[in-house]
C-alpha cells in the first residue's frame, strides 16, 4: 500500500513570494488533514477535508492561506504571500474516516527568508 505522498520535501522562498504544497493521500481515504509543525512543537491542525468538503478550517489563516481538494483526492495548500513566521514543516495526513488512525506524509519543510 502506497503511503501519503507530499511534495516538495523542501522549499526555500523569499518573503512575500507565493508557495504551494501538494499531497496525495492513501487511496480510499476520505479524510485529509493539513497540519503545521513548528520546531520542537506538536502538529497544529490547519484544515480537515471530508472528501472534497472542508469541514474544519477554523485554524487556517484565511488572509494568506488557501487549500483545495479537487475531486476528493489530491490536495494543495497555498500561502500567498509568505511571511517569515510561516517557516515550519507542513504535514499532510489521511485516514479512512474521522476519529480513526491517521497516516502521515513526510512533510514539506518550508523556509522563508
Amino acid at each position, binding site marked *: 500500500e502506497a503511503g*501519503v505522498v507530499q511534495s516538495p520535501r523542501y522549499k526555500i522562498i523569499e518573503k512575500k513570494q507565493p508557495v504551494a504544497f501538494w499531497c496525495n493521500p492513501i487511496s480510499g481515504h476520505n479524510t485529509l488533514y493539513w497540519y503545521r509543525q513548528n520546531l520542537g*512543537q*506538536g502538529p497544529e*491542525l490547519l484544515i480537515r477535508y471530508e472528501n472534497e468538503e472542508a*469541514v*474544519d478550517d477554523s485554524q487556517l489563516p484565511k488572509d494568506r492561506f488557501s487549500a483545495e481538494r479537487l475531486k476528493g483526492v489530491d490536495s494543495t495548500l497555498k500561502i500567498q504571500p509568505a511571511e517569515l513566521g510561516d517557516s515550519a514543516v507542513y*504535514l499532510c495526513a489521511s485516514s479512512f474516516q474521522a476519529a480513526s*488512525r491517521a497516516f*502521515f506524509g513526510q512533510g514539506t519543510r518550508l523556509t522563508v527568508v
Partner: protein
Amino acid sequence: SQQGEEDPQALSIQEGENATMNCSYKTSINNLQWYRQNSGRGLVHLILIRSNEREKHSGRLRVTLDTSKKSSSLLITASRAADTASYFCATVPIDNTDKLIFGTGTRLQVFP
C-alpha cells in the same frame, strides 16, 4: 491550539531500560492515539485507545488511559536505540470527532 501536554518534555535513558511518557488533556475524548516521529520525518501511528478502554498493549508498548484524570501514559519496555524519537499523544474530542489534536510531545533519547 493543542489539547494535550506530554510530560516529561525530554527523557534520556540507557538501552534496556523502560521509558514512561505521560499525556494530560483538557476535554472529554472519543479516543486517544500515540504517534512517534523520528527526526525530520513524518509521524507514525503507534496505538489507539478508546475512551471505554483502560489499557492496551502492542509489542513492547503499553498504553493506559484514565478518563477521570484526563490522562494517558505510554510505556516502552526494554528500550532500544532505535526508539529514539519524539512521541506525541493526540486526542479526538467527544464533541468534535472531526478533530485530531496533538500534544506538545516528549523527546526520547535512548543511549546504546
